[in-house]
């Protein structure tokens, strides 16, 4: 079992003809993801050629609009590689076309754009992952995003994180310990995005295929504190965590737009304390994420 995506998920890649889009669409198809359509305005009618996991040819039709792609192919999920200033528009297009899951990989979308997007998606039956995230993967079934597929292993640990490479590090440690993953979700490093920790924890809590959760947070905002409240009140499964940025200075943006300690708020110390008080086991160092999770099983 898994959450949100599985071997049946049909994906349309927005920005499939761009350099990032074509590279990663190729990787996703090689992993076995059902990429059924691509979308690039004014490139409709072209075919995107790639190879499946067995080396077989996969020809993906490219459409001018997501609506047409959905109509023709039945795509239910969009993966967005559109450049930053057009990405908010791309998210809205995917939602209007009826995609129930939108995975926005794009980094650098202005925050006022994302505020409008969130308002536009309010109350609609659509979930947004990201932006500025590695995407989502259900090992062995479906990879939508930019994570290296080979480090993952199918299993029962749900993984959720605000960071990309730190997730790979955690997944690498879990897989090395023989602990496979049900689904791994990168929720992204921006101040305003789609699913947050609480949304994903709720999904994992309800998923019979997930036995435990590994979460990676970082400085900035209070998403980890809210996650701690949810865990305390509702979580039936053990949770291990790591919070990056114990050594980060205040007032400096640490790479991610959302990773900043402002006005003394959003420190790693506060987040770790909140999680520990909710019964979460927090790894003392990023090298011990895997073993910390294992100790809970």
């Amino acid at each position: 079992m898994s959450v949100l995506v599985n071997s049946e998920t049909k994906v349309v890649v927005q920005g499939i003809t761009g350099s990032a889009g074509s590279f990663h669409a190729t990787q996703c198809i090689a992993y076995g993801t059902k990429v059924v359509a691509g979308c690039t305005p004014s490139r409709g009618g072209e075919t995107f050629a790639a190879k499946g996991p067995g080396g077989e040819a996969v020809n993906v039709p490219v459409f001018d609009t997501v609506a047409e792609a959905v109509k023709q192919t039945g795509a239910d999920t969009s993966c967005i590689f559109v450049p930053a200033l057009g990405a908010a528009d791309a998210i809205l297009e995917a939602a209007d076309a009826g995609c129930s899951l939108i995975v926005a990989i794009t980094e650098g979308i202005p925050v006022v754009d994302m505020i409008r997007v969130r308002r536009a998606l309010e109350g609609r039956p659509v979930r947004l992952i990201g932006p500025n995230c590695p995407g989502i993967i259900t090992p062995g079934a479906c990879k939508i995003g930019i994570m290296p597929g080979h480090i993952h292993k199918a299993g029962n640990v749900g993984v959720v994180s605000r960071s990309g490479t730190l997730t790979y590090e955690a997944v690498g440690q879990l897989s090395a310990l023989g602990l496979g993953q049900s689904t791994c979700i990168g929720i992204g490093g921006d101040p305003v995005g789609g699913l947050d920790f609480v949304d994903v924890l709720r999904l994992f809590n309800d998923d019979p295929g997930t036995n435990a959760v590994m979460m990676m947070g970082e400085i900035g905002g209070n998403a980890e504190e809210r996650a701690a409240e949810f865990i305390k009140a509702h979580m039936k499964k053990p949770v291990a965590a790591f919070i990056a940025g114990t050594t980060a200075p205040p007032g400096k943006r640490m790479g991610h737009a959302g990773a900043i300690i402002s006005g003394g708020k959003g420190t790693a110390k506060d987040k770790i304390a909140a999680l520990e008080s909710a019964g979460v086991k927090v790894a003392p160092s990023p090298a011990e994420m895997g073993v910390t999770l294992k100790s809970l099983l």
Partner: protein
Amino acid sequence: MKIHEYQGKEIFARYGIPTPKGIPAFSVDEAEAAAKKLIAETGGEVCVVKAQIHAGGRGKGGGVKVVKGATAVRAAAEKLLGMQLVTHQTGPEGQTVRRLYVEQGLDIGRELYLGLVVDREKRKVAIMASTEGGVEIEKVAEETPEKILTVHVDPVVGLAQYQARKLAYGLEIGKQSPNPKETIKQFVQTLTTLATLFEKEDCSLCEVNPLVITKSGAVIALDAKINFDDNAAARHPGWPQLMDKSEEDPVELEANEVGLNYVALEGDIGCLVNGAGLAMATMDIIQHHGGKPANFLDVGGGANKDQVEKAFRMILSSEKVKGIFVNIFGGIMRCDVIAEGVVAATKALGLKVPLVVRLEGTNVEQGKQILKQSGLRIESADSMADGAKKIVAAVQA
């Protein structure tokens, strides 16, 4: 990106938000000339000479002088220009004052606080207002949070007038004003305009501390602090002209220009990492094992050889760096590209300190091969913990 108060006020003026009359000055002579002009225009002798640095708390730090007459402005400018201004936001070394803003003095009745920020939890712009103007808002938030009123801006309809009125009545804006109705009207107008400005100008922070109500009841922005959302730079061609490079850390600036995220820290172990989260975690693990990171450096997911070389050169040329830890978990980032960049930079600048490299992910074997063939003295690590322990030991040896 941060801009100066006088630049923020130019933007305010463009939107019709009332500010005192003022003129920026880059020298003592310019300051005196500005004062003469202001006094002639306004008929008032009182001038305020304000140091322009990218940090708050200038008043308390001695960076704002209220004086009478052009000669006194000149004397104040002489004191301020070139001084190291220390405030609660600058750090102990302070910031050199290179620009001044000479402004007309006002008959201040009340000082209020206004701040617009992105509320990450509500996913909207929040407007905070408080009667406690002119002081550190962080302190007010901590000690008397009930004195801060907040409303959220709906991105579709903008700030509704009733929301602005709610703040106006909540803060008793009309109190002490000879014409309360007019004062409230001006306050509502200023607030709704600021909400529009925040969105249109792609701000990440907009603070007016203080917003004053003069004794005659006029609402005037006595301060303007604007930070822009760097992500929106591409749609604001005017931003580069507003940037004051002397206010930025030169190394961070250099990094930004080549598309790298770099933050200087206090320690002596240089780090080169791909990905922001892993870069932070690398700093943390160095400290966990008893060392101190010299920097945060995220080369990103798609860096090329030149960027990696540039990044590595920045670390190598820092005098405080006594050891370097390269920690790569290549997802998109290819290990061979990292290795090529590291070797190229080291060949150009030489390697005088210990270097520990941990490579994992795409093309890891090729990367290791390149490092090996370079003949450089590089210690390789099997894991993040192994690498951190090795570099800490090497630096402390």
